[in-house]
């Protein structure tokens, strides 16, 4: 039974978790994730889920408990932000390396210092090498849809990797939007049951998790993870199609908005994509062929899809909501430019760092980006430095 509700990003994440009904949830509060865990605790207290909650004493223990639980054949979920994610960093690597299909909500928030509770992508970008699949959500509907799909993607037999689903802190997490919910049974039928063929609770076939690899085996285990990420592309696509059949909202690794014939393209992740869509519509009315390329799956990085999508563009701007200090641009820019490098025909591409620590980005800023793209296409000259949208000089 389809239901239309008004919920905030955190609330709808909790709702998706309720329908997923994981066996174990181990979480520690951190703004702006807190509402998710609070709401979910109410579900537990009211007997609306079968979940056993572990109210851990730190995020490091949260991820550790999730590792233990999934290794024991249970479905486990958690949620965090910023420094909480940073604290569980080593265990994130362990979770991915042990091939445990944990699903985690990351409510994007800036990393300290100085301490800042508002949105940027430094937390999830910081874990981009950890081996987790990363899906970025634009709005409340997407966080709901992504979470449900994440379970199936993670548990896909060819993937077996944990999945991180993000949503922008405060901007989406605390904003109320119209959301279409699926019925409980449809969700549980869609995700099916979790079966770990090598469970710690299988006493007949005792298994050892997390051994010591010397230099003679570590490389092989990592190569397996590389393979899993490549297979994940298919899983994301397949599950996105199946979800489309279920909900009439299909998903892929990227989303193009007015992209097919676009001359000037902006690439972005998360809620800013929504603002860009508004600007694209405005510009189109003014006769400018503007388009948006929204990246949904940042890991695995959809290089082929991006190359295809940009083949007709005249100028491209990549918006990064996190900095990579000392690097030649933000993380998204580096990957996009690298993907295009081998192409014979590639558009000029520029990078903007924006929105750090919740610095707002609006229609005016984005219009400025497109104006610049038009100038670049005209003059065929790239600016010398990376642009910092909205910082006070």
């Amino acid at each position: 039974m389809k239901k239309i509700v008004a919920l905030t990003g955190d609330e709808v994440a909790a709702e998706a978790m309720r329908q997923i009904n994981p066996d174990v949830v181990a979480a520690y509060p951190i703004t702006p994730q807190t509402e998710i865990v609070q709401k979910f605790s109410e579900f537990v207290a009211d007997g609306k889920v079968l979940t056993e909650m572990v109210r851990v004493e730190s995020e490091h223990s949260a991820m550790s408990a999730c590792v233990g639980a999934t290794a024991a054949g249970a479905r486990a979920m958690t949620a965090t932000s910023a420094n909480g994610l940073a604290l569980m960093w080593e265990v994130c690597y362990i979770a991915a390396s042990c091939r445990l299909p944990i699903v985690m909500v990351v409510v994007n928030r800036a990393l300290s210092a100085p301490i800042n509770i508002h949105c940027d992508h430094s937390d999830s970008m910081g874990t981009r090498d950890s081996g987790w699949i990363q899906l970025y959500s634009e709005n409340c509907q997407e966080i709901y849809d992504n979470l449900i799909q994440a379970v199936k993607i993670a548990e896909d037999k060819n993937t077996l990797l944990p999945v991180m689903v993000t949503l922008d802190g405060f901007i989406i997490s605390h904003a109320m939007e119209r959301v279409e919910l699926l019925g409980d049974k449809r969700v549980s039928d869609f995700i099916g049951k979790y079966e770990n063929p090598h469970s710690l609770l299988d006493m007949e076939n005792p298994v050892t998790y997390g051994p010591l690899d010397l230099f003679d085996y570590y490389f092989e285990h990592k190569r397996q993870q590389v393979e899993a990420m490549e297979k994940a592309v298919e899983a994301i696509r397949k599950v996105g199609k199946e979800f489309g059949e279920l909900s009439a909202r299909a998903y892929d690794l990227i989303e193009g908005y007015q992209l097919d014939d676009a001359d000037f393209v902006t690439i972005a992740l998360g809620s800013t994509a929504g603002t860009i869509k508004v600007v694209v519509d405005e510009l189109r009315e003014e006769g400018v062929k503007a388009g948006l390329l929204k990246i949904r799956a940042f890991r695995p990085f959809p290089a082929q899809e991006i190359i295809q999508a940009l083949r007709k563009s005249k100028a491209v701007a990549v918006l990064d909501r996190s900095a990579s200090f000392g690097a030649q641009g933000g993380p998204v820019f580096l990957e996009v430019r690298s993907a295009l490098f081998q192409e014979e025909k590639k558009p000029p591409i520029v990078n903007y760092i924006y929105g750090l620590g919740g610095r707002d980005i609006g229609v005016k800023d984005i219009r400025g980006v497109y104006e610049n793209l038009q100038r670049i296409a005209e003059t065929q000259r790239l600016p010398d430095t990376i642009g910092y949208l909205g910082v006070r000089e």
Partner: protein
Amino acid sequence: MPSLKELSKREERLSRGHRLCPGCGASVIVRQILLAAEDPVVLSCATGCLEVATTIYPYTAWKTPFIHCAFENSSATLSGVETAYRSLKKQDKIDKTIKFIAFGGDGGTYDIGLQALSGVLERGHNLLYVCYDNQAYMNTGIQRSSASPCGAATTTSPVGKVITEGKQEERKDLTEIVVAHGTPYVAQASPAFYNDLMKKVQKALSTEGPSFMNILSPCPRGWRYSDSQSIEIARLAVLTGVWPLYEVENGKYRITYRPRKKRRPLIDWIKSQGRFKHLLREENKAILDKLERSVRQREEKLLALAGEKGEAL
């Protein structure tokens, strides 16, 4: 408690071929614990000697399910396994009895693992945490931990020209920290007293909720003595009062062994290990006295808590 003859018929769940040092106290401890545990067990282990030497890929010495996650989270990881077990049992997906034992060295328990242990104890998970206390970070090269006794020479508290005492700080009393959590069953044991150790394991595993055992694990390499002396040293620790054998059940203290006639002076303990060699020098008399005092004080406190009479164990 079954006799040794009866125990000898039980399955050994730690296989031969593990690569712990000859004479390692930890291997004896694990064998005794697994022989005492009558139910199927799932184990977790912190990074350290025990974990590293028993699971060198592609070999594992464990004949029971085993998980190593990281250094500081053996307790947290196993709490996730235990929670999964409860959850799946509640949903009728599992029906067998399984017990859970988390292992950690003093490194992974007293220091980096203290927070996670505290969280697990407070949350009341149904598992036994065993600390095999070899009184230093042995696996990484004998560096001092908060469990190292004062006066011990370690690689990060070496005996030098200016600092001649070795470790200057007194060791932390983790067993008492655990008791302060209100943990239903807490005990100290030594592998030299196998009956006492195994009885305590059985009590711990039949306790509802968390239980904790702190077991002294002599280390030939780190403590500088000949391999063949490990059990004798584990015995001496008890006979000299350095490592009292006691248990705390729901807050009630009970000393489970009093050496009485077999009592030995502390100097025997000091003389048995190279890590204390420098304490026999005149210039280090103060730290030797400090060590003696702290052993005495803890003994007296324990005697009082257990409501027992006498000056010494």
